[in-house]
């Protein structure tokens, strides 16, 4: 079977799994998350109230949430009525496409077999199926990112003007779904500038990089113009400060608080193995499920800081700027502590905190990817495409760790982790099936013809 046919099989299997999961799990809105806000914004859009988080007149405009996902949901509501199932059906299909794109990126990095394993690993992951059946931005955001990465890798390879432009457009669209994608623009531009193919000619490089800038800028410009006219500032979102204030005040905590954070970090990074050795129940300090050291570390402290500063910032001329000022005050006052605590934030970003089968899969994937990346780097087996992918993922991690982290934020970047994690699996599978010539012929040639 050829690589292309296997991609079709991958799409069908991922979509079938997604539909089955959707059928078995009827919940669509996630309590305590953004689901209800997206539903409200989509309803406001189709009712002609604009992008608003208000449920009554005068439907004040918002820049708290980006427009991409509400616009997508609103379009589906308009076509099929306000039915979340229609959104979930589309998200299942998009997950199938994202799995295929993951396979293509994986194949570009490590060959066809590793690519297919990565695509299946990502697409059939229970975490992916969960996000597909919820009204959340994860699926379209992950798809736009992985498509952008696939096109960027192709641009890096062939220097096509169209691909440079499309890379910018893709990242712009991803930014309109989640503003955090805008932080990937500088590393993508720099890495493509350094490692990309540009053809001959003096101005080729600058022309292509300028097209990337233009593609990105033209897509996000209308949103910036709207915010400049409505709120007096050309911002992508009003969530920067609110994110920083949940993380930065921790820098002021005394040294005596660090041991508990270290314990929680080690426990989470080794979860669920740690659950076997030292059950999470032993961290419980109160009757409610949230009364637990792991919850304190992962969620409770962030909420405490937000609530502490909310009264003061709600009356500021710009609430988000007020939160940002508070956060930056802590960064300036306690720079070393802020830096040191980035290690805790990294753990919060990378690893699932609560013990479950899903945590086993997620955390194993992350560890396997990290170890594989380190081994390949040690053996000097990483080339320009790997540098591009690692650079972009690293930029996201730095951006996230500096501002605000939740393990949920990592999932859209899971395709790249699965690509690296698939390498040792592909090596084992490759050895097992290498005696079958028909299989070898189809699978062991990378799509680009190189190994």
């Amino acid at each position, binding site marked *: 079977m050829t690589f292309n046919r296997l991609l079709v099989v991958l799409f069908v299997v991922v979509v079938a799994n997604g539909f089955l999961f959707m059928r078995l799990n009827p919940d669509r809105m996630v309590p305590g998350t953004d689901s209800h806000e997206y539903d409200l914004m989509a309803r406001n859009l189709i009712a002609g109230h604009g992008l608003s988080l208000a449920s009554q007149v005068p439907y004040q405009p918002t820049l708290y949430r980006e427009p991409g996902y509400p616009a997508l949901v609103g379009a589906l509501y308009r076509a099929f009525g306000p039915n979340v199932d229609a959104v979930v059906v589309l998200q299942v299909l998009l997950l199938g496409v994202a799995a295929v794109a993951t396979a293509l990126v994986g194949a570009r990095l490590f060959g066809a077999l590793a690519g297919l394993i990565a695509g299946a690993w990502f697409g059939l992951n229970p975490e992916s199926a969960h996000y597909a059946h919820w009204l959340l931005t994860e699926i379209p955001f992950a798809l736009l990112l992985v498509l952008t990465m*696939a096109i960027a890798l*192709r641009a890096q390879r062939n220097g096509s003007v169209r691909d440079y432009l499309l890379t910018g457009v893709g990242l712009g669209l991803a930014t309109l779904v989640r503003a955090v994608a805008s932080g990937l623009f500088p590393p993508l531009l720099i890495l493509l500038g350094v490692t990309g193919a540009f053809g001959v000619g003096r101005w080729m490089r600058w*022309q292509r990089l300028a097209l990337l800038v233009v593609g990105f800028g033209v897509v996000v410009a209308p949103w910036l113009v709207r915010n400049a006219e409505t709120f*007096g500032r050309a911002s992508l979102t009003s969530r920067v400060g609110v994110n920083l204030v949940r993380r930065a005040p921790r820098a002021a905590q005394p040294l005596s608080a660090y041991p508990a954070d270290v314990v929680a970090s080690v426990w989470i990074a080794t979860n669920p193995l740690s659950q076997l050795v030292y059950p999470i129940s032993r961290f419980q300090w109160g009757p409610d499920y949230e009364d637990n050291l792991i919850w304190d570390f992962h969620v409770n402290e962030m909420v*405490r800081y937000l*609530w502490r*500063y909310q009264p*003061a910032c*709600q009356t500021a001329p710009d609430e988000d700027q007020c939160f940002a000022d508070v956060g930056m005050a802590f960064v300036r006052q306690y720079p070393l502590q802020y830096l040191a605590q980035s290690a805790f934030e990294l753990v919060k970003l990378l690893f699932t905190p609560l013990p479950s089968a899903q945590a086993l899969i997620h955390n194993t994937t992350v560890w396997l990817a990290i170890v594989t990346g380190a081994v390949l780097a040690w053996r000097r087996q990483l080339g320009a495409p790997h540098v591009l992918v690692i650079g972009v993922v690293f930029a996201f991690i730095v951006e996230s760790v500096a501002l605000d982290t939740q393990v949920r934020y990592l999932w859209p970047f899971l395709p790249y982790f699965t690509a690296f994690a698939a390498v040792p699996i592909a090596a084992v599978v490759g050895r097992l099936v290498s005696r079958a010539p028909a299989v070898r012929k189809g699978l062991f040639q990378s799509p680009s013809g190189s190994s």
Partner: protein
Amino acid sequence: MMWHPRRRPRSRGSVWLGAIALGLGILAGCAAAPPAVPDPPPPPSGSTPGLEPRWVYAIDLLQHGDDARADQYLEEASRLDLNALSHEAGNPFGDALFWRDVAEVRLALGNDDGAREAVSRSRRLLASEDRNARFDDADRQLFNRLLDALDAAARGDTDALTMLAQASPPAADPSYLAGWVAEQQHDRAAAQAGYRQYLAEVPAWGFLRRSSAMRAHAAGYLATS
């Protein structure tokens, strides 16, 4: 297949230069967009049920620097059923925070007795608030210190405010209130000292609802005195 063999890209200089110029023009237009400030929302109508819309509107008015009208809506809200307050709507401390806000605004408008009464109500409600994962002993301690500071300011007790300002972990608000009381008592040096300390500690350690107005007032006083 997605991956094409390496090929030499075609050059269409003028078209691409035009596209680039257009894109950069749009970006420049964005950057040059004039600032605008959102209008204040309309007030809740008399028939709007519940305390929360009035509280939220009062907060909006405080944001626009209108203490007197904010007080009007807070007083109106204070006569309504406190039990209807949601703990999920951005007011985690619920009724205790509501009465702290009332105390602040009454104090700012010179209603010292009313401020002390509101502090007392807030303190009682805070005591009935259970400790939980997201409102721990440190939060309770801080909240109580702010109430103590509001009460001391209403009594004109600068010594108590100075002590509260020196407690640890830091809270800047007692320093402001010490400066504010000193200003009322025409003690310029003490007022300047209080305001200076306050401005040195905010925004990291400023928690009261009127923080923005307090910062503006402290900075203005220091600039003119």
